[in-house]
């Protein structure tokens, strides 16, 4: 079923997804959208790995993707806990409200 695809095409798609995610991170103020954009970015990194694995027909790309998956799961768990805390403390989801670390 697998087909031969130029790696450049896959990488272009991955880059495009990544940059869309980055755009979301930069534009959105709502912390939940921000996290979704982050998920997109990580997913695009996974896509790049899969592409590299497919280039060589090796399973390493998929393993890297799994590790990214674990990382994303951990990140989302902690980040959503933080979202709950922020919404309780600042009574908003504006990420700029939590700027107490400014110099």
């Amino acid at each position, binding site marked *: *079923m*697998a*087909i*031969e*695809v130029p*790696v*450049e*095409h*896959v990488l*272009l*798609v991955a*880059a*495009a*997804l990544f*940059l*869309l995610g*980055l*755009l*979301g991170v*930069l*534009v*959105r103020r*709502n912390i*939940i*959208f921000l996290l*979704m954009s982050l*998920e*997109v970015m990580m*997913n695009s990194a*996974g*896509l790049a790995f*899969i*592409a590299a*694995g*497919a*280039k060589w*027909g090796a*399973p390493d*790309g*998929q*393993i890297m*993707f*799994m*590790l990214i*998956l*674990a*990382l994303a*799961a*951990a*990140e*989302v*768990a*902690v980040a*959503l*806990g933080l*979202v*709950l805390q922020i*919404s*309780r403390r600042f009574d908003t*989801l504006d990420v700029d409200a939590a700027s107490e670390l400014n110099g």
Partner: protein
Amino acid sequence: MTLDLALFWIPAAVALVATGFVITRKNAAHALIYLVVSLLSVAVIFFVLGAPFAAALEVVIYAGAIVVLFLFVVMMLNLGNTSVMRESRWLRPGMWVGPAILVSILLITMVYVIVGLPDANVTKGEMVGPKAVGNELFRPYLLAVELAGFLLLAALIGAYHLGRRYLEQRREP
């Protein structure tokens, strides 16, 4: 060859469009649905590229578990119409200019780099099944698996701690 490429580009296009909706929707639940679409499209791409196991995991964990987690939080925070209005206030068109320029520059440089890659970089077109992945994963990458386990445990404890409702009150005395 062209047909084959269509197999790749159709889900890719869906993914890009869906992602575009993810970052522009004002309603969090709608955005999440588009996120699911995007993730499923990427899963299809994985399958097309010969990584069926990764495609399955993408569906099960990304589109399943993680998005469901988002959904729970969105429901807990009860983001209704007021939040949609607030989003419209926050998402003024002017906000897009700066980030868009930045991202465009990045896109151009990346395209330039990727297109400049040496020729004959074509994927092998072989299926690399779960057996091969498992063989590799639990032999040379065993340490990485352990580390991922640690990471998940730490995230579990952290999320448990952060998720408690009265965290701030408990600090008082």
